[in-house]
Structures are given as C-alpha cells and as structure tokens.
C-alpha cells in the first residue's frame, strides 16, 4: 500500500473530512439548542414567579418560561424541586416521573418537560416540543 493511501483511514475518511464532519455535527447540536432558547424567548419574557405561575393558565405560563430557564440552574434541581416551583405535571412526556407542562403560545400547544437522570434524580435538561 502506498503512503498516500495509508493516510486515509479504513473508512476512507481523511483528517479534513473528520474535521468537517465534527464541525457539522457540533453546528447542528448548537444550532438546535439555540433554536429552543429562541423559541422560549419568543413566548415572552415575563419575570418568573412561582406563586403567579401556579395560579396561571398555560398561556401566561408560556410567557414566564424563558425567565425561569434563564435564571434557574435546572441541572441542580430534582424532580421534587421542579414540582415545588412549577406545581404538578399538566402534561405527559415519556415517563410519569418526568415533570411536564402544557404551554400555549400563538394558538400552538407545547410540552415543556424535564427528563431526569435516574441515577442522581437531578434534571438532565429541558425539552420543548410542539404538541401536534
């Protein structure tokens, strides 16, 4: 085998191709996350208040969620902490033990969920999904 051929990996990937692929994947990941944050901001930026949240409907809640996510380190919270701040789940996402809430904005319905790490019982992240 020639040296020139040896530089290529078994699957035919050159270092440049690896770099481009990884960059593309990272761009995709970061791009997706940014879209979610932007979606939340588009709902509104009313300051989060737990008491007000618990008395409010899903449209008012949608306006508060950006402030909540921005000001709360959700990864330090357990599902119990989320329930004490946001109340009982109003939606279902994957499992009963994942706190999940219905949000409404611009005549669209969304599910905001907080999947947990089953080993630590801490929130892994938030998920915002249009309920269609």
């Amino acid at each position, binding site marked *: 085998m020639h040296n020139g051929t040896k530089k290529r990996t078994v699957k035919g990937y050159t270092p440049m191709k690896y770099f481009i692929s990884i960059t593309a994947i990272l761009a995709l*990941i970061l791009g997706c996350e940014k879209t979610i944050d932007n979606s939340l901001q588009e709902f509104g930026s009313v300051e989060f208040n737990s008491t007000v949240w618990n008395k409010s409907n899903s449209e008012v809640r949608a306006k508060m969620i950006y402030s909540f996510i921005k000001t709360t380190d959700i990864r330090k919270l357990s*599902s119990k902490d989320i329930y004490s701040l946001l109340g*009982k*789940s*109003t*939606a*279902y996402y*994957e*499992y*009963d*033990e*994942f706190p*999940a809430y*219905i949000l409404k904005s611009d005549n669209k*319905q969304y*599910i905001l969920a907080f*999947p*947990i*790490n*089953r080993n630590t*019982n801490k929130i*892994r992240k938030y998920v915002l999904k249009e*309920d*269609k």
Partner: protein
Amino acid sequence: MSEAYDQYQNLTLKEKVYIKRYPSHILIIKETKEKAFKQTKKLFGFNGHNDKSDAFRHCYWSALLSKEIGYANALVFTTAHESSPLNPKNEKSMDLHNNLFGLKIGLHKKSDSMMSMQCIMALKKGQLKVIRP
C-alpha cells in the same frame, strides 16, 4: 446530543435490558408510541397526566404493541416502562392497569382504528383507571 442517545438516556434499566435483547423492536416501540400520542392529541386535544387522556394513551399504545410484537413481549416492555423506583405508586398502578387492558385488546389484532375505539369504549364504561377525573 443525538436524539437516539437522548432517548436511550431516558430509558429505565429494565427497558434497556429489553431493547438489548430485542433490538429489532426499537423502531416498532418508537412508532407505536408516536401513533398513540397523535391519536390521544386528536381525540382529547392534549396528552395529559393521570387523566382520561393518559388512560387512553396507555391503553392504545399497549394495544398497538401487543398487536405488533405479541402479547408477552408487549407485557414485558410496558411493565419495564413503569419500573422506575421514582414512578409514584398510584400512577404506576393506574398505568399498569390500563396497559393490561390495552394488551388484551391487541391480542385480537384488529385495525388500529378499531382498537382506538375499544379503548375509548373501555374508558367510557369506567374500565380504565383514572386518578384525576
């Protein structure tokens, strides 16, 4: 993080054991789950928690799974789905009851729309469990 990896992170330990044994069922499980969510949204307007929509979704998803992968496998998987120690006992009890009802409906391998109707009938007759009426 890819969606597949993320989904895997969400699984209970028993679900992970199941899909390692039956990897060919992963796609069926995903598709039937999505079908059940869509049908619930279509019939109830939302996918609720501990309410009638929740009872229906569990019944219908279990029926679809029972039809596609067989009663025994569907029973193992749907029970594994509820197996987290963090799952509140009363909610687990409700879900297992409604799953079992759906699994039996799926045994007869009727059309999806017929099974959906049977789950709705069961709900109307009070045969499905609901915590929040």
